[in-house]
């Protein structure tokens, strides 16, 4: 190899090698729209379709595209343009979770945090929406996050508004607590433990806070004389009568029910804001991806041109380690690279790498060299 290796061409060549050895299978491929990207642009061209997985894999092995995406949607004519001519038939329900990080290198810690959000999402999909785990597929995005796809015929036909409703539910967007309370027969009636949906979640949240002495005193302080009245508060949450709790929180000596309810709701709002992600599931999914029923998403098990990692289908989420389990290239073969900018010490593929200084030439395992080359931090020289 010469010193003037064209990185886009060289990377594409490496990707071709991967695709010639790995067969990628897409569900109902003939109804999907595809998009492909280059070194400089994640989607360079779209409106492409394939009649079979075989044709698709031939294209991958021949062209070695750096990015491969396909539609969550199913179309009668996926390659037709403009969009209306494609004839939308439905779309998988998809979720995109991305880590918020500034570093150019993938942070395994951030991805680990994201995994717990993903578990929350799966929990809501299963327990609230009744979607069986067998209909859920998760894959690593190949970079900073995860994609979750629901393959369920019923959900497929939902439009944008319905999908926005699902996102709002999952991320509790627009949750107005006052909607759960009303005054009836001189009582403040509100959520109870047996309630479904957010009403039940609210009651059980309060129940667990009141049952936890340190948390209860943190939010309700002495005003509640906790020990003396705790059982009464807890009973109130069981039967949905919040009058006693509201009365104790009320600063006024004479109880005005509507003021007491208002005061109670303000207090609950404060608790939820503070306990936020721990209580009401804040999955922080990218709403646009879920709502946009013609969005293209990275094809699972293809390579991500910004990392050289596999957008791997995940079967064991808890045990999944992106920087170990989604390597496409060898950690044994080595390549010489020229470092383009300082790279901090980093753990990659079960190995620890020291800090790499700008302009130095170093020998690195192929997989790590490709990872850094995709991030434009090194040039492969030989």
């Amino acid at each position, binding site marked *: 190899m010469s010193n003037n290796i064209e990185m886009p061409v060289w990377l594409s060549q490496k990707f071709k090698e991967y695709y010639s050895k790995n067969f990628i299978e897409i569900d109902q491929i003939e109804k999907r729209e595809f998009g492909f990207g280059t070194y400089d642009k994640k989607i360079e061209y779209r409106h492409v379709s394939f009649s079979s997985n075989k044709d698709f894999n031939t294209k991958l092995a021949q062209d070695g595209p750096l990015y491969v995406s396909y539609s969550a949607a199913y179309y009668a004519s996926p390659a037709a343009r403009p969009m209306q001519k494609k004839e939308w038939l439905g779309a998988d329900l998809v979720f995109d979770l991305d880590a918020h990080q500034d570093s150019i290198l993938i942070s395994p810690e951030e991805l680990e945090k994201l995994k717990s959000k993903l578990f929350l999402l799966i929990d809501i999909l299963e327990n609230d*929406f*009744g979607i069986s785990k067998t209909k859920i597929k998760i894959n690593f995005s190949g970079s900073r996050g995860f994609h979750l796809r629901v393959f369920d015929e019923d959900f497929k*036909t939902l439009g944008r508004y319905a999908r926005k409703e699902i996102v*709002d539910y999952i991320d509790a967007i627009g949750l107005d607590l006052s909607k759960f309370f009303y005054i009836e027969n001189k009582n403040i009636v509100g959520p109870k433990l047996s309630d479904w*949906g957010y009403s*039940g979640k609210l009651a059980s949240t309060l129940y667990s806070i009141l049952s936890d002495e340190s948390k209860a005193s943190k939010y309700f302080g002495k005003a509640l004389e906790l020990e003396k009245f705790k059982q009464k508060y807890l009973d109130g949450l069981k039967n949905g009568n919040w009058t006693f709790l509201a009365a104790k929180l009320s600063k006024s000596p004479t109880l005005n029910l509507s003021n007491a309810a208002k005061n109670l709701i303000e207090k609950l709002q404060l608790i939820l804001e503070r306990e936020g992600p721990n209580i009401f599931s804040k999955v922080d999914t990218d709403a646009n991806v879920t709502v946009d029923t013609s969005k293209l998403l990275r094809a699972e098990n293809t390579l991500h041109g910004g990392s050289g990692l596999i957008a791997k289908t995940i079967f064991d989420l808890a045990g999944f380690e992106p920087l170990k389990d989604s390597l496409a290239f060898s950690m044994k073969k080595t390549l010489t690279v020229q470092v383009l900018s300082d790279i901090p010490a980093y753990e990659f593929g079960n190995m620890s790498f020291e800090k790499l200084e700008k302009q130095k030439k170093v020998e690195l395992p192929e997989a790590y060299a490709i990872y850094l080359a995709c991030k434009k931090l090194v040039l492969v020289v030989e």
Partner: protein
Amino acid sequence: MNRNEFNLEFLSHYPFLAEAKKYVDSLKLELDDSILELGKKRLEEGIASGLKPIVELNEESFKNSILAYAASRLILSNWKNIYIRQRMAIAESKLARHYLSTENFENLKTIAEEFKISFSVEKDLVYIDVVSYLKYAPKDIHYKLLFIPLKEGKVKLTKDQLTRVLEEAIRARLEVLAPVSLASNKIQQIIKELSSSIPKHRIDQIKINSQDFPPCIKKLIAQLSSSINVSHYGRVALAIYLIKAGYSNEQIQKIFSFAPDYNFETTNYQIEFIRKKNYNMFSCATMDSLGLCIADCKCSNPSLFRRKLHLFNAQKSVLAEDEEYVK
């Protein structure tokens, strides 16, 4: 099926059911002017003030009502007017809801099945699958999924909520018309006559500088002017915005007059109510949660859009100058 086996009273309440179509087919009638006149009357009533329940409770009256519906659909199919189509879909679905509210659960099930909605009942509460709910739930904050009991893919509704969901399912169904090429002279004549009853004024007759409005407001106006049904909160947002923008009741009425379910008195009452309460414009976050936000305008409230836009343009002009300087 023998003609006598049809429950005409039931079908006259829900003439959009497949069973009603079967009944009409079973009559083997020639499509004559008298039947088309029934359809015309139904359209006149629906467009003008909404459909009224049947007054004369006899077989002849039920039969005529079913035929009137069938004929009105035939006329609508030939009348390429989205406003009328939506207004009639609302009128028909509202009339259906009037009857639905008095039905027992067994009959409600029969009607729901038509829309592939199945539900179970326990202690007067209805359990329906979340997908059916999401498809037909009204775009109204009270029906937002966040506030609805949801567990293991089922939502729990009251009977009244169910009938509102069914009303939406009926409306959505009736907005779609089968393409029909049969357009007799009589149908053309009826369409011509009825056309004169549609409001003729256009939105562009009043002075709106649409450049000044944020994208969300522009979209709401565009939807109304195309007679696309806008949610209750969308209308409230639009009314608040227009009031704050200094529009008179009359000018606001003109914009709302294209709503498929437009009613002068109701609109006037609501505009006056919003004026009296002096509501603040919804924030962008609220607009977003109501599904009304359509663009990233980088402002916190639609009423601040112009100011933000000017600021943004000002910054951009500085940057452009910088670039020129570098070159």
